[in-house]
């Protein structure tokens, strides 16, 4: 795939390359990060690799099943003290490559920045929640769940946060999600107006434990069809079988 020799751009790893689109800097440019060597020594089995991007940004890849102890150590160890969770997000590169969960950490006492990443395969989108470590992760994890469909184990209240709770088109920031959504505009408008504004008003409505999310989509005869993994409690509206009608159409036509 080499192209544009001498243009200054590096080759892009192809879809078969499982390492994501990150290209590490040449060895000579790497500068030591105060936390990375000790992190590597302590969590050797979980430490996958270390990259330096954009000149001075250190990225550490950690095995997704060990992310919690690694981050807990980074927060509680007095020499690290990454007490400020600056950002928690995810990146989807498309093409079936794993989704990267990105933890952007900052240590207010030591003024260190570190980015920790965990790559989760599309078949098993689940990591441990870090809400016990930083409370700030609560909404950020909900947003990642909403936008990417990554589930966080032991999260206190894992619901959609930006999209409506009955949103049935999938997870918008995935690369396989079309820009204008899966349904036609007319269907989107109908569904939007079918939900009553006072939904999720009483505690049993907005309490945790409800999960009626569509987890995946497959094309059947040109129509998007939801693949459900639904654990529904209460009076949550079910996504219907054909995916084109009905999430909330039953009871709220005119109120």
């Amino acid at each position: 795939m080499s192209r544009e020799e001498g243009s200054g751009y590096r080759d892009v790893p192809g879809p078969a390359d499982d390492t994501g689109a990150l290209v590490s800097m040449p060895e000579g440019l790497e500068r030591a990060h105060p936390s990375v060597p000790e992190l590597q020594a302590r969590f050797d089995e979980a430490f996958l690799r270390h990259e330096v991007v954009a000149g001075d940004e250190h990225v550490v890849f950690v095995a997704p099943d060990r992310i919690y102890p690694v981050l807990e150590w980074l927060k509680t160890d007095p020499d690290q003290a990454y007490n400020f969770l600056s950002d928690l997000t995810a990146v989807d590169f498309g093409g079936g490559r794993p989704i990267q969960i990105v933890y952007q950490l900052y240590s207010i006492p030591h003024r260190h920045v570190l980015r920790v990443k965990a790559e989760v395969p599309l078949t098993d989108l689940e990591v441990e929640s870090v809400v016990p470590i930083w409370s700030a992760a609560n909404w950020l994890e909900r947003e990642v769940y909403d936008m990417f469909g990554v589930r966080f184990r032991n999260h206190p209240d894992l619901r959609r946060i930006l999209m409506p709770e009955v949103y049935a088109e999938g997870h918008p920031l995935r690369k396989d999600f079309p820009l204008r959504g899966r349904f036609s505009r007319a269907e989107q408008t109908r569904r939007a107006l079918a939900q009553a504004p006072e939904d999720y008003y009483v505690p049993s409505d907005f309490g945790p434990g409800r999960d009626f999310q569509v987890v995946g989509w497959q094309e059947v005869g040109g129509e998007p069809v939801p693949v459900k993994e639904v654990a529904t409690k209460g009076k949550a509206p079910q996504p219907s079988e054909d995916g084109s009608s009905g999430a909330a159409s039953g009871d709220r036509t005119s109120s």
Partner: protein
Amino acid sequence: MSKKTIELEVSRTPEMGMDFRPAPGPMQPVDLAEPDLRAEKMLINVGPQHPATHGVLRLVLELDGETVVRCLPHIGYLHSSFEKLGEYRTWNQVIPLTDRMDYLAPLIYNCAYAMAVEKLMGVEVTERCKVTRVIMMELDRVFSHLLWLGTWAIDVGAFTPFLYAFQEREKVYKLHEAYTGARITTSATRIGGMMADMPQGWDVGVRKFINELPRTMDEIESLLSHNAIHIGRTQGVGVIGAEDAIDMGLSGPNLRATGVPYDVRKDRPYYDYETYEFEVPIGEYGDCYDRYMVRLEEIRQSCRILHQALDRLPDGPMNVDDPRVILPSKTDLMNDMESMIHHFKLVMEGVKAPPGESHFSVEGSKGELGMYVVSDGGSKPVRWRVRPPSFVNLAAIPKLVEGGLLADVIMVNASLDIVLGEIDR
């Protein structure tokens, strides 16, 4: 329930030093003896269309009498799919999206995004551009705090500061318009520079504005800072400690009001902020009044930075001389084949960033504003993520209002200085 309320009332009034903070006015907690009612919870829905939620925030409050026992914020009523749209835009086309995200301080967003992409591409902007961006960011910090001050005053029940603040804002609108042609949606930056050099006399206009601003600020402060109603409604309301605030991820004035001097401009300086003389105001009690005082002082400190930046504004080119990112001049375009090719490629394909990623944090008007861009080598971002300061700040609102009174919810919400366009993105 009544006993509990009175205890809360008493505990909400901390011991105050008479030197720094004016003592509370005649509003002392009174004995509200009433029969103990059966605990019956009541639900109140605030928003999404409510004048005091500063946009389309929705709060579901569970009340025990007048005490909030549970608060559940609902956001997403302004989710405009910025980050998805950014993946379908070229690098420069994303800039118009950034200022629609935080329409209270659009230039800070423009600059932060351009800085992140420039860091990813390894482009070093010129000195004049750096100082110009510092001027723009500090100007918009004042701009944003002024709107916050006006709406805060409305929420506390005073209308006059709103009018005063908007008169000052109109001057910034005119400065925006003189530079960029738009009052709010500025889209002022480009990768590698600015959309244009500043018009002649623009810096004089900025200087005139910051010379006149302190007088208005004194007037507003004389209306609010020692006002008994204002003090009674804000002191001791929405208290959060420093450790909790860091744990919740608060940043900006909300964090500094708790006494933590975390300011990205000081801790991780960019654009030579370490060479400017300014101070980071911090609070003591972490309540609404401290947040108010911190923001007032930040306006004055921004004026200091603006004075210094205007003094040191160097001459020279505004844009980098880099054909990868900046269009060649019209003369070169007509005379030079290579410039013609650069022009064609830049217009047809857009700026291309090398594969990689970059996270760049600046001190926005609301807190730490992070821009995270990921590139695969093409002319469009793979991922453009904004670390929204208000989003994280708002997540702390249940902690701030639970246990307080219903009337305090409005003040706490106003003191957080949220902007829904950035929270919901």
